[in-house]
């Protein structure tokens, strides 16, 4: 395995995403669910569309 390469790539990815992409930052005001089924139910209840984010945990 290219462990140094993989490690470097992983670190770089997270540095870039955490630093250069504010998209990743927590939104303090809007509530974020962490359960897909719950999101579907909530969308049915509120008749809102869903903004679904998939991301890897650091």
């Amino acid at each position, binding site marked *: *395995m*290219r462990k*140094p*390469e*993989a490690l470097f*790539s992983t670190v770089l*990815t997270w540095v*870039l*995403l955490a630093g*250069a*992409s*504010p*998209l*990743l*930052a927590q*939104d*303090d*005001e*809007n*509530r*974020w*669910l*962490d*359960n*897909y*089924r*719950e*999101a*579907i*139910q*909530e*969308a*049915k209840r*509120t*008749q*809102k*569309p*869903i*903004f*679904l*984010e*998939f*991301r*890897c*945990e650091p």
Partner: protein
Amino acid sequence: MLSPTDSPRGKLLSQYVCARITRMDGIDVGLFDRDWNNTLYYFMMNADEQIYMRYGGRDARSPDSYLNLSSLERALEKGLELDRQYQKGELKKADRPKPLFPREIPLLVERTIARNACVECHLIGDYLNVHREQDGKLDKLTHMYRSPDIRTLGIELDVPKGLVVKEVRDAAAAAGMTPGDRLAAINGTPVWTFGDLQYHYDEVNRNAERIQMTVDRAGTLIDLSIALPERWWWTDLTFRQWTIEPRVYFDSVSLTDQEKRDQNLVERGGFASKVRRVDMFAEMTKSHELRVGDIVFGVDGVQRDEVANTAELFIKLRKTAGETVTLDVIRDGKRLQMKLKSYKMSFRK
């Protein structure tokens, strides 16, 4: 605070149910299919699981080449508009793709789910490909060279403006695309974001010779037929974490026909190429002893290929990861042979 509710983005987000998923265990990955080497990816959808659009996508340069808060706001606005159309019955309901859950991917179950490890996106992509390889169904042009780069067509986007074109050259320019055009559809499928565009561009058959790109030019939709250049699907795979790609730890550039004639090598279809860079991992992994300037003109006695134009591309396409091959090499005018052991990455937790 990046998106307070009284900010434009906060107001947009407050009109959605927002959900953040970090484990894929119970997710229908058939519905949410994408290039699995994206660290971050979004879908705008509804409670009927109808997907309006995607937001995300990356290229070999960076994970966030196409992530931008302005373009995200545009996408959020468009998502609300599409939702209004859907609720009024003005938007055609799409057929749901065939469901596929992580528990249906045997190697993922055996090596990840059974160990209660995190079902990460890139693991789904890798294990799907490993199964394809085992079943003889791996099409490397499609499954390994995923997410072709639109810049190969000569399209540079004005990223904050979403799909508005900033610069045009090469094939896109020849087809009539101009700066300021907004990409609106590819082969007839509407696209609203770079994520949409990249996903549907990826669906193009690798043997295709042309694609139809529809652009919105000052409110008028114009169909452009773009001639796909040779190896339009090729991308730098370095950032990808998977096991199906034979890592070779060198780059080479294809010889010109004249250079091939000078060396008395196969011209038409010959993949003879000159080494321009040797990765430090070649020595660390004892993969091979190639040097910059070497000409590699054969692999296991084969010198030509209908697709590959360099030796390393030939190995990546025609060999399996971990395989050892014999290279035919010209070094300082002398012909010699040497072994190359390709490397199979193993990155799983």
